[in-house]
């Protein structure tokens, strides 16, 4: 049976996930990921005609909270576990790529 996922795809996914993998790891994960996909492939044996796609595994919807303010942590607590800080800010390596933005 051919591999469901090749080295190139594993390398790409690793890059997207900001993971650095060794050659040996790439080989290992290519095998593992293919095995996982094989396992999930079993689902295709089921006939899903006329079955609504499932958006969530719980039979629930509309779980809300009211728009009321809860106390925040405050700067000191928020920064307590930060590896590095600069005054009230988290300090991180310089971001060079400016094309971000939510």
């Amino acid at each position: 049976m051919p591999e469901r996922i090749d080295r190139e795809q594993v390398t790409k996914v690793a890059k997207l996930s900001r993971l650095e993998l060794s050659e040996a790891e790439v080989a290992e994960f290519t095998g593992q990921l293919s095995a996982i996909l094989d396992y999930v492939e079993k689902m295709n044996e089921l006939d899903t005609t006329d079955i609504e796609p499932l958006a969530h595994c719980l039979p629930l919807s509309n779980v809300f909270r009211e728009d009321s303010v809860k106390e925040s942590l405050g700067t000191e607590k928020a920064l307590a576990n930060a590896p590095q800080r600069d005054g009230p800010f988290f300090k991180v390596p310089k971001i060079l790529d400016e094309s971000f933005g939510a």
Partner: protein
Amino acid sequence: MEDLAYKVMVGLEIHVQLCTRTKMFCGCALGFGEDANSRVCPVCLGMPGVLPVMNKEAVEYAVLAALALNCEIAEFTKWDRKSYYYPDLPKNYQISQYDLPLGANGFIEIASGSGQTKRIRITRAHLEEDAGKNLHTAGDFSQVDLNRTGTPLLEIVTEPDMSSAAEVRALAVELQRMVRYLGVSEADMQKGHMRFEPNINLVVTKDGAEYKTPIVEVKNLNSFRALERSVDFEIGRQLGEFAETGETMQMGNKSTRGWDDAKEVTVLQREKEEAHDYRYFPEPDLVPVELKGRWLKDVRAGLCELPLKKQMRFVSEYGLSEYDAGVLTAERSTAEFFDEAVKAGGDAKRVCNVLTQVGLKLANEKDCSIVELGIESEGVAQLCGMVEAGDISASASAQVFEQMAETGKKPDVLARELNLIQKSDAGELEAIVNKVLAENAQAVEDVAGGGKKSKKARGFLLGQVMQKTEGQANPKVVSEILDSKLG
């Protein structure tokens, strides 16, 4: 460069910050300018093991805006995770909506000059959370402030239906006015409540054939001016580039540019090849939202007459100029106050003059809105009626209006107290005119003599009557009497 015929195509992506009290998925208060990282909690910090919970108000605001944008509202909508790798969103994904946005297939009308409107199609409207702020000014590192992280944003995407920079601006301004009318956003540009990303390209006609230039997306514009100028700049730049290279739109040659506000040019942004590989997948931590029945009806009840419609009605129904109607409809409360004053019997144009020339100026001085001046719309109608009847002069009405705001008294009471009631009784005024004419024989003679001197003498006589009545004579009535006496 040869002259090329071309059409402009612009679509807009707009992010609007909703004015809820708290963030989208946690109870941290929204704010602006607070100490960095003071409005954060384990949820918006992306700590392990936390769970987001939807802010009901944010969903309702978003649905209300989508309804105003004539969108189809999804009966069933859900959340998705969008991969994100910058430190201003520390959980490494943004909660957004991918395949089932809460609103789709809508439209917005914008003014396109001389009372006409143009319809711009809305592709989709969905809710998502904002990222925080990365600052790069401190040195060889970046600072991260997560106060804004998790703020509810409404993302609106239009079809490429705008064909000029002016239309792009018109849409942005209309949308700002609309979300303010609906009360779903303060839409304060200074605070970054509205951010724009235009997608621009041209359809160039050359030798009878049409060519589309590659699409350019300009990122993160936060003023109407930058939005309009960047689109104008891109039109010129793309035309020049097409003339030079002939490159046309293809899969994969869309590019991203930033706006340099100082130089007023767009600048190519180098993006990583995989930058748009967002790998969306359903958000397992949030259950879907079902929008129907009573709840949807309740949200729909929050709709109001939208600003452009109101503006056009003020022109057609009340005969106001487009400019005046625009000024009055800039804020919903002012527009409604005007409408009430007219319905209470005020002459539309006079009410408009009082509000735009006196009311807005006074409100501006006091840094409040017209309704917050504490004047009743009926009072304004009454004031306008008094000017109309000649009881007080138009200039005196400004003084009365100011005192109405100051004291809360009725205009007729104030006009009497301030001695501003004009004498319009023709009999009484005639006696005074006769007296003035008798005392100023030379002037009467000059009037009769005609020419330049005559006009001046007539003005002098009118002035004398006004002086004798201590300025309280209705000049119109006095003028009529003078006319009848002097021929």
